[in-house]
């Protein structure tokens, strides 16, 4: 009697697992699962067998099965948690995770943040110790500030290098795109590798100081075509409004404090201006992909369409993306080809974000509409209210809704990134590979900004040569970017069994060119009249820079216990002086797999133990000019001419320069321990690092009379940072019905500036930074020797016995009898001392649930909303209109008439917080459509809540200066995944 065994193999989320093998132990009989995860073994004699179910990256299941007739047996495989066989993408190659010696964190798709994620970097927010990813605003497609270990630089760029499928991309923003990364569809991404320490990153040389993020996109898999379709629909709302006085409150306040004329200005309406400018934003996101293989050609093709409306009216984004990956092999796998091409078109409408501040400030006793058609019908402040046709009040706050609805700022951006990678394994020496990588990243952004001539925002307009006024705006912009890369490297890997060693070596060459073309246009009124004098002197400008590099890495493993890695890169950069443009960046790292030592082998509870130590030198050359190592003369614009006699001359102006400029250099040490317990159900890593950046690219004052610029980016200064990182992951429950995984990461990071001037100068207060709103040219932060970067530089507020700040009274800290700039002191910093991420995923049969939370401790924020709109002067201002005020006015009672009050430490607030980024729940229906396909539904809430003492709208402010940020919405998402 023969029977059969049939069934389905699924993964931990109940999705089918195609390509898993099911074999009967002790025989060669077996089957492979089809794209729906089904297997069938026919013609099996009745009896009891042991079945083995295997899939790479998953824990093999062995189960005893008694066959009689048609037996059905389903399996659910669990991933090998932090699988030891996991392969991690490193610079120029891959490595088994267990052989890593540097601080590299790998995040794959299953661990990504869920919900509506429109820009790739948000996928790993809160997921990696030492990496903070903070969205810059709640606007559609807005970028994020990514800091790896807090960044190693001061006033130059602190952004990490991002490499997509082997193509290092430029950090330059693209005109018309809110964020260059928003042109990459997050759904196409397979994994992130974050290279955190110098030994991992130094192979990227003079761009590696702030860490490197390697993004790998999804590729085709062998087997029949699998179609994946996902669809999401979501609704976003602002979690809360900025706290301002209501119409009745402001009426009371003006009546109590104002003059008769001011009281007469009060209106009778009660308008909630913030309600007027915000909306519920609906977003749909649809993605489809087909992957599989025909003979020797694995492929994956995908397309996506995102349609997002912002919570601020008139902001939106539509994105169409397409990606193709082909990875054929030729000559019996001796030549592997990997072709990637990704394209995107993003159409965006940018709202006038000035409306956010206007909505806070606009008088709520005024109606939205005036009742007449002037200014498009929006109520505006006039010079003389008795003359409805008279001039607009100059400098008055403008109607927030008018600012939004009377601006049409739209862009269309195209971007394509792609590469062709050839990997040839030599026939005569198969250990040797030659790898050639040709890549490109091109983009084009165009847009226009149209404001009708009725709009109050452009009421002034300009006079043409006949003295006729032209109003409104009809401007355009255009930019193209083209980055190309050629890379070739040889790699050699060999097991030397006789000496129990394994070596792995890479040596290569790289040439990369970054070029941007910025087109210049004049300024046009809405009717198309060009403003006299604004015609550009040059039609375009084309800044460009290049890098030529050679690099190498040697990995040596002895007895599978001791791992030694050395890397070196030599970079030449066009940004520097010819005689000092080359730099060498070495690193070395050592790892010791203690678990393999006999003394630990016997401890069964301990499944992994590894020590790692590394040291390296990396560089940083971003955020500085391309050419200014010599002085160039630039011709002035047509509005910056000078008159001699009756003629106007365009001026030749020599520019500032710094001949000795070079990359900044970071020497970093990393010491770490990796551990695993209970068959790696609990794994963790603790990293300690110490970094010292020297030759800081730092804008410092020049001795007057020696340069054409009084401040120039020079290489003077040192910055040290120290940190401790912890990553813990636990499979708390691991049964066939229930799995529960929890991941916690924690980062402690401090930094201190140790040098800023050539010779030590205690009288030098430091370099001011952090411009604030209110007045002109005011700053609130400073970089000073002996203090943390971006320390606030403020007056010490004196408080009355009632606990309220005494207006205009500050501590005379140097006791010279005068309160002036010499009494400013450094108080707290916007950099957090610690930050945390906590993720949880729970699966119960067909249900899944999870959350991601983040927290930050010790970060302070300057509440610019309070300081600029929480004063009496903002209500009764010099312009002669009434404005609304932040409710802080009632608490502080500040008049705002003292210039120093905006620099008071009263406005520096503790912005430590806990934020629930995402809570999600899903249900897997399993087979639908006649036993094929798989359907999963999910629901998410993003930005669920924030716990903080911070008094403004949102404590998470990258710059540390909170000034009417586009609010981060709370988003409710419904999602569907269907695979066929």
């Amino acid at each position, binding site marked *: 009697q023969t029977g059969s065994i049939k069934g389905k193999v699924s993964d931990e989320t109940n999705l089918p697992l195609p390509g898993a093998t099911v074999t009967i132990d002790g025989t060669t009989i077996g089957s492979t699962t089809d794209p729906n995860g089904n297997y069938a073994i026919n013609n099996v004699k009745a009896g009891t067998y042991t079945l083995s179910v295997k899939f790479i990256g998953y824990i093999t299941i062995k189960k005893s099965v008694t066959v009689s007739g048609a037996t059905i047996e389903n399996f659910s495989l669990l991933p090998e948690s932090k699988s030891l066989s996991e392969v991690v993408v490193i610079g120029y190659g891959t490595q088994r995770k267990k052989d890593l010696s540097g601080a590299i964190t790998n995040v794959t798709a299953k661990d990504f943040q869920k919900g509506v994620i429109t820009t790739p970097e948000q996928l790993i927010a809160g997921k990696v110790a030492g990496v903070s990813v903070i969205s810059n605003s709640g606007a559609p497609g807005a970028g994020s500030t990514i800091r790896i270990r807090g960044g190693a630089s001061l006033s130059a760029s602190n952004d990490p290098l991002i490499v997509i499928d082997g193509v290092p991309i430029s950090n330059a923003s693209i005109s018309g795109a809110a964020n260059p990364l928003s042109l990459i569809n997050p759904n196409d991404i397979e994994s992130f590798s974050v290279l955190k320490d110098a030994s991992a990153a130094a192979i990227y040389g003079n761009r590696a100081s702030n860490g490197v993020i390697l993004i790998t996109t999804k590729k085709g898999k062998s087997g029949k075509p699998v179609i994946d379709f996902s669809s999401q629909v979501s609704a976003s709302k602002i979690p809360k409004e900025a706290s301002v006085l209501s119409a009745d409150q402001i009426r009371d306040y003006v009546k109590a404090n104002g003059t008769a004329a001011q009281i007469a200005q009060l209106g009778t309406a009660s308008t909630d201006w913030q309600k007027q400018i915000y909306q519920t934003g609906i977003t749909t996101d649809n993605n489809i992909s087909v992957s599989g293989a025909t003979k020797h050609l694995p492929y994956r093709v995908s397309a996506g369409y995102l349609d997002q409306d912002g919570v601020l009216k008139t902001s939106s984004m539509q994105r169409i993306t397409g990606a193709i990956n082909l990875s054929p092999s030729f000559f019996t796998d001796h030549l592997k080809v990997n072709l990637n091409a990704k394209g995107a078109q993003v159409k965006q409408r940018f709202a006038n974000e000035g409306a956010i501040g206007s909505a806070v400030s606009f008088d709520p006793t005024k109606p939205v509409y005036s009742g007449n058609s002037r200014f498009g019908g929006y109520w505006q402040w006039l010079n003389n209210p008795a003359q409805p046709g008279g001039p607009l009040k100059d400098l008055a706050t403008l109607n927030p809704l008018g600012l939004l609805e009377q601006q049409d700022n739209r862009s269309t951006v195209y971007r394509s990134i792609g590469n062709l990678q050839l990997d040839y394994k030599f026939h005569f020496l198969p250990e040797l590979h030659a790898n050639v990588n040709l890549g490109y990243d091109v983009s084009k952004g165009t847009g226009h900004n149209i404001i009708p001539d009725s709009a109050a925002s452009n009421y002034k307009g300009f006079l043409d040569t006949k003295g006729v006024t032209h109003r409104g705006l009809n401007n355009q912009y255009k930019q193209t970017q083209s980055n190309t890369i050629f890379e070739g490297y040889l790699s050699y890997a060999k097991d030397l069994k006789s000496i129990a060693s394994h070596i792995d070596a890479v040596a290569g060459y790289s040439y990369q060119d970054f070029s941007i073309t910025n087109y210049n246009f004049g300024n046009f009124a809405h009717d198309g009249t060009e403003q006299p004098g604004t015609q550009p002197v040059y039609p375009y*400008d084309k800044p460009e820079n290049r890098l030529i590099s050679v690099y190498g890495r040697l990995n040596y493993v002895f007895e599978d216990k001791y791992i030694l890695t050395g890397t070196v890169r030599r970079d030449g950069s066009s940004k520097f002086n010819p005689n000092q443009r080359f730099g060498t960046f070495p690193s070395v790292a050592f790892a010791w797999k203690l678990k393999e030592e006999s003394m630990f082998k016997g401890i069964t509870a301990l499944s992994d133990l590894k020590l790692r130590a590394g040291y390296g030198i990396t560089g940083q050359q971003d955020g500085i000019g391309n*050419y200014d190592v010599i002085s160039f003369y630039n011709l002035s614009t047509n509005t910056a001419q000078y*008159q001699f006699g009756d003629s106007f001359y365009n001026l030749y102006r020599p520019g500032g320069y710094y001949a000795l400029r070079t990359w900044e250099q970071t020497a970093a040490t990393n010491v770490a321990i990796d551990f695993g317990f209970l068959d790696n159900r609990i794994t963790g890593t603790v990293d300690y690092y110490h970094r010292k950046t020297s030759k800081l690219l730092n804008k410092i004052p020049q001795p007057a009379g020696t340069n054409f610029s009084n401040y120039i980016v020079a290489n003077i200064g040192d910055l040290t940072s120290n940190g401790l990182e912890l990553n813990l992951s636990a499979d708390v429950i691991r049964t066939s019905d229930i799995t529960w995984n929890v991941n916690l990461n924690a980062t402690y990071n401090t930094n201190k500036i140790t040098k800023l001037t050539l010779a030590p100068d205690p009288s030098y207060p430091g370099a001011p930074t952090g411009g604030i709103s209110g*007045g002109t040219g005011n700053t609130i932060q400073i970089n000073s020797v002996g203090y943390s970067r971006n320390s606030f530089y403020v007056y010490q507020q004196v408080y009355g016995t009632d606990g309220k700040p005494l207006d205009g009274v500050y501590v005379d800290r140097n006791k010279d009898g005068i309160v002036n*700039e010499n009494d400013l002191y450094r108080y707290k910093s916007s950099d957090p001392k610690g930050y945390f991420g906590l993720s949880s995923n729970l699966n119960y049969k067909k249900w899944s649930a999870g959350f991601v939370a983040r927290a930050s401790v010790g970060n302070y924020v300057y509440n610019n909303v309070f300081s600029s709109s929480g004063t009496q002067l903002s209500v009764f201002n*010099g312009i002669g209109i009434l404005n609304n005020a932040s409710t802080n006015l009632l608490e502080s009672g500040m008049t705002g008439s003292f*210039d120093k009050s905006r*620099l008071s430490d009263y406005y520096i607030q503790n912005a430590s917080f806990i934020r629930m980024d995402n809570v999600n729940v899903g249900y897997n229906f399993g087979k639908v459509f006649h036993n094929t396909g798989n359907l999963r539904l999910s629901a998410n809430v993003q930005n669920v809540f924030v716990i903080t003492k911070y008094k403004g709208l949102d404590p998470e402010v990258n710059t540390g200066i909170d000034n009417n940020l586009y609010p981060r919405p709370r988003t409710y998402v419904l999602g569907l995944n269907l695979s066929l």
Partner: protein
Amino acid sequence: CTKKLDLLPTNDVTASQVYSTPEGYKQAFAKVYGAFALTGNKGPAGDDGTKDIQGIDEGTSDFFRLYWCAEELPTDEAVVGWGDVGLPDFHNMSWSSSNTFLTGLYYRCMYQITLANDFIRQSSDANLSSRGIKGTDADKVHQYVAEARFLRAYQYSILMDLFAAPPFVTENDPLGGPLPKQISRKDLFAYIESELKAIDAGLVDARGNEYGRADKAAAWALLARIYLNAEVYTGTAHYPDAVTYSKKVIDAGYSLVTDYTKLMRADNNLNKNEFILTINYDGLHTQSYGGATFMTHAPVGGSMPAADYGIAGGWAGLRTTKAFVNLFPGGASSADKRAQFYTDGQNIDINTISTFTDGYAISKFKDVKIDGGAPQSLDYADMDLPIFRLAEQYLIYAEATTRGGGGDAALALSYVNKLRARAYQSATTGQLTALTTDLLLDERGRELYWEGFRRTDLIRYKKFVEDTYLWPFKGGSKDGKGVESFRTVYPLPSADVTANPNLKQNTGY
């Protein structure tokens, strides 16, 4: 292969390209002048790459605007209501070495000196011959060089007056070379004096140059000005020299325009009979938020009708104090037509400096044409600002004579009476019969107010820091009070003291 790393900008050019033609020389020379009126290479304002001075808001970084703040705000002539950090320090007389405005002004002056030095260096005979600039082209460049030296001497005179002992660089100090040495106030005086005399032969005759460019009279006018103040700068008075040089200017053929109230207008280039040298602005071609734009926008607020001032709207900042109003007999309604106050809705007394309606406004600067016509732009002024005009030379002659400089007392009196005849629009009313130094200080106030003279005048008269003359909010006190004597000199900016260890900070700071 490394040749691929040699990249050049698309539009920017090197010195050898700029200075390869006579036209290039003139455009580079125009920058030496243009840096007086413009704040960067993009009008009215650009970004960090296009602005001239870093570390200060670009609109504020204009030469005349900053110089005006330093000269007028700590005096009886002006207050400003804005809360820009450090700005109220001027009338509070509490500035420190990190004051943004003083730092910006110092760097603006030093920047213009650095530009002049570069131009002079590029115009050496060796450079001219190697670039094939010869004949009349070379003659023109020589004339440019004389003017660049004048502009440099002028900027040094500002630094000498405000900061006393700045770093000293000339065309002989290469860019990026050793740290500049500090020069004492006395040595700087001697240098300026000798430079102005040395370039006399190279400058065009008085009133012989293109409008907007310096001639011999400009150099004499500057000599007369520094001689008048020589005692403050060097401890030694030079009144006879002040008499000599102001007389040379007066005799060069200038004349007063007939109506004082039309001096500061959009088309005041027509007033060149009185103007010896101007900073030239233009609403279309020379746009900045400083200079004439500042002078025509910042004083307008309250109920002042913007259209009367040729602007789209005022900035509601500048007013004056009661002490200044009282210099005019009869105050704001004086028969002296120089009393150009706007009083509707304004209180003569200042309660709160940030309130525009506290303190009378000044209506002397209007960007409308002399015939009342509209300017080219309502946002950027067309008006030119005189840095030397005949009236000042009359007053220098009168004061130096009265102080014993050996001039003709009757002539001195007649010069002052010329000003008063214009002021009262009468050959009889308002005429003086004798001069005293105190009377001349008041007369300078009435004639030259808001043109950038007051602080220097009060220091020369020992009334700036002393408690012998008080005005509302002097020293930050509502009734006024004296302050420390070291405040007759501004501090060197801490930024440069740090960057250049050769600099010794001024006493008291």
